[in-house]
């Protein structure tokens, strides 16, 4: 007869069997049995965060940069509701995490017990799937299913609610050999006929563009993407989530597209005759006004999630499947289509296309005006990029700094970039960076944050210090909510409302209060030495960079506008008035 053990121990044993080595969490009444079991359980590192959302974001950082499932563990009620933001964040960006929450004992569920909340009801719309465990025998199968669901198909967060009595009661561990869900069978291989059709379109195209999203990173398809791009000589633009899927400095790279994308990426997509969307979902921050997005293009869309296809933009060649497998097949199909040579690729039309893109790039490169006295945020990004050679793990908060980081950090590799793309969660930076650092001890993790965004989870400096996670945070300090200020300036006629954060707290002192190192620079000449000092410091560091607070992110497409309606430089009054007329808000 099998040995009986507590549900709590079964949970930990199951996590270990799933290959989990790190859990991000915070204890509380309902999960105390789990923490008690953790006391002498071998092989699981627990990182104690200071607020539950941080546990979720840390799990996201862990997952995004390792390709494994991130795990977080919090208690019932308020802990679970705190976690909701991280769950929705992971859901929007398709990040595989398994979130464990405590729940009041089964006999009290629904009785308004202390620290009770309808966790499953609350997380249902912001997870890929969720479970309430009602019998200890189900723990093994449910945990297996949870990891399977989180990591396969379109990845996403899965939540398991664990009532306290289930964790206490002794039962046998049931561990199924494999997971089989009759209702869940993601389609991995694209339809061969569609792939052939796509290959033909790509070879025959005169003005093709590859539009690449986070799906390429999730499916580890960057090598295939590079091969396809070089084979077909098609330029590549990536979304915010797709940064790193294609080397930023590759000659075929158009860098990011969309609201704050490059002029040349947006113009190329707009003028394209064949647009190949790979693991991207036509987010409104990418498309701008949908009627005018790539209006001439035959659109090929490769995505593992059928519901993403033709959701925002009607697609001509849908291919449902895993990006890596589909790209592999597409490369073969393109080779076959090209026969021995590459006549259509070398043709006059393609040459004109390359020349046109080069012209756009030359006319409107990413640029900013240098200033000898004020630090320009773009310059900070360039220096971080140079001094880390594009090899650091980079995490951001949400706001202007996020867009500048996306524009100016030159990525060489995938899985080195974590940012809150879909939900736009301020405060995402530090906790996510902690998760990345826990997953990659000894590696350089840089959190580029804004003063407004960083303030939202700055308590996690304590976690960085006590858990030995030497995250380097660069605060792009413009004494306010910069992106909101930018919108109020450009679209709301400079009616600045509720955006000032006048230097409180003193970030250097705050860093020191948490046992971290604090540095500050106010002049351009001080920047590079300070970054070098930060990189050389083996402890968590805050580098407070006081930047030009009037600097705005350009290019910019006002919300609801067409991508060709880019504002490229600080707007004149005339442009502001025009934008004010067409504004549709955030």
């Amino acid at each position: 007869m099998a040995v009986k053990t507590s549900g709590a121990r079964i949970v930990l044993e199951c996590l270990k069997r799933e290959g989990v080595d790190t859990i991000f969490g915070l204890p509380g009444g309902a999960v105390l049995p789990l923490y008690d079991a953790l006391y002498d359980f071998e092989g699981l590192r627990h990182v104690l965060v200071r607020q539950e959302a941080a546990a979720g974001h840390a799990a996201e950082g862990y997952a995004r940069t390792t390709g494994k499932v991130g795990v977080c563990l919090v208690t019932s009620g308020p802990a679970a509701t705190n976690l909701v933001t991280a769950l929705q964040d992971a859901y929007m960006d398709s990040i595989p995490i398994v979130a464990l929450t405590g729940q009041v004992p089964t006999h009290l569920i629904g009785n308004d017990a202390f620290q009770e909340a309808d966790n499953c009801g609350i997380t249902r719309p912001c997870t890929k799937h969720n479970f309430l465990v009602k019998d200890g025998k189900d723990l093994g199968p449910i945990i297996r299913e949870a990891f399977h669901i989180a990591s396969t198909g379109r990845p996403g967060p899965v939540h398991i609610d664990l009532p306290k009595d289930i964790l206490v009661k002794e039962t046998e561990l049931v561990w199924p050999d494999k997971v089989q869900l009759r209702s869940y069978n993601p389609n991995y291989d694209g339809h061969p006929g569609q792939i052939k059709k796509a290959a033909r379109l790509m070879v025959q195209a005169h003005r093709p563009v590859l539009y690449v999203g986070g799906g390429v990173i999730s499916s580890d398809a960057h090598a295939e993407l590079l091969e396809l791009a070089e084979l077909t000589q098609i330029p590549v633009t990536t979304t915010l989530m797709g940064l790193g899927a294609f080397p930023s400095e590759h000659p075929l790279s158009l860098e990011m597209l969309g609201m704050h994308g490059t002029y040349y990426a947006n113009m190329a997509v707009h003028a394209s005759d064949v647009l190949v969307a790979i693991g991207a979902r036509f987010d409104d921050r990418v498309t701008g006004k949908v009627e005018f997005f790539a209006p001439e293009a035959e659109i090929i869309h490769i995505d593992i999630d059928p519901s993403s296809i033709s959701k925002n933009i009607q697609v001509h060649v849908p291919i449902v499947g895993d990006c890596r497998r589909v790209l592999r097949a597409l490369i073969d199909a393109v080779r076959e289509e090209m026969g021995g040579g590459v006549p259509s690729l070398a043709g006059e039309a393609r040459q004109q296309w390359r020349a046109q893109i080069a012209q756009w790039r030359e006319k409107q490169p990413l640029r900013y005006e240098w200033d000898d006295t004020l630090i320009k945020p773009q310059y900070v990004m360039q220096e971080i990029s140079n001094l880390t050679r594009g090899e650091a793990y980079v995490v951001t908060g949400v706001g202007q700094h996020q867009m500048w980081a996306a524009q100016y950090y030159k990525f060489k590799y995938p899985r080195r970039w974590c940012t809150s793309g879909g939900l736009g969660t301020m405060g995402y930076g530090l906790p996510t960076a902690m998760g990345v650092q826990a997953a990659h001890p000894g590696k350089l993790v840089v959190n580029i944050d804004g003063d407004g965004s960083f303030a939202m989870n700055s308590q996690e400096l304590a976690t960085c210090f006590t858990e030995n996670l030497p995250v380097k945070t660069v605060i792009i300090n413009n004494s306010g909510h910069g992106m909101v200020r930018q919108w109020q300036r450009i679209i709301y006629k400079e009616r600045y409302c509720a955006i000032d954060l006048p230097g409180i707290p003193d970030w250097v002192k705050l860093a020191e209060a948490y046992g971290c190192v604090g540095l500050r620079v106010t002049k351009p000449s001080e920047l590079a030495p300070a970054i070098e000092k930060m990189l050389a410091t083996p402890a968590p560091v805050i580098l407070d960079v006081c930047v030009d607070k009037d600097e705005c992110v350009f290019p910019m497409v006002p919300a609801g506008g067409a991508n060709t309606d880019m504002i490229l430089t600080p707007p004149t009054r005339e442009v502001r008035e025009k934008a004010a007329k067409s504004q549709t808000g955030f």
Partner: protein
Amino acid sequence: MSNGNGSEPRKHTIAILVENKFGVLSRVAGLFSARGYNIESLSVGETLDPAVSRMTIVVHGDEFVIEQVTKQLHKLIDVIKVSDLTDDNHVERELVLIRVNAEPQHRAEILRTADIFRAKVVDVTAATFVLEVTGEEGKLDALIELLKPMGIQELVRTGKVAIARGPKARAKKVEPVKRARVSDDPRVVGFAD
């Protein structure tokens, strides 16, 4: 519920096979409510396999909306199969129970009407009848209209259940929607300069 893509909104009858687990109904209903869509009717019950339930949902929408709804339904882990029965040859039925005033001068007429509609009298008192009737929406509406003058005290409808005729439902095809061309966009003029 039109996105202005050309197809007219209309009623769709969608059949869904789901795992018979708690929370499934809420997941399905949540898909609609989260998008601000109103479900016209929803009925659910076990199938031959007690581990599987079948839902029949009636929802109003154009082709685009319905395509999204069915794709999103497919995406739910507990959903086994989704079929849109609307354009298939299918049978739809609804059950209604009606408590109607039965004054002496109306009793005969109510019974005659019930007979015509093949309604059954399932409860009788000196002052009321409860009628049970099944059928398509139009038939039930017609009966209700006829009974209204007698005074309907209470009425309960189940919502529709539907099943395809013949061996199998056909797959639905959604036509691509036309998008704007460059020439339609005044702003693109001269973009290549």
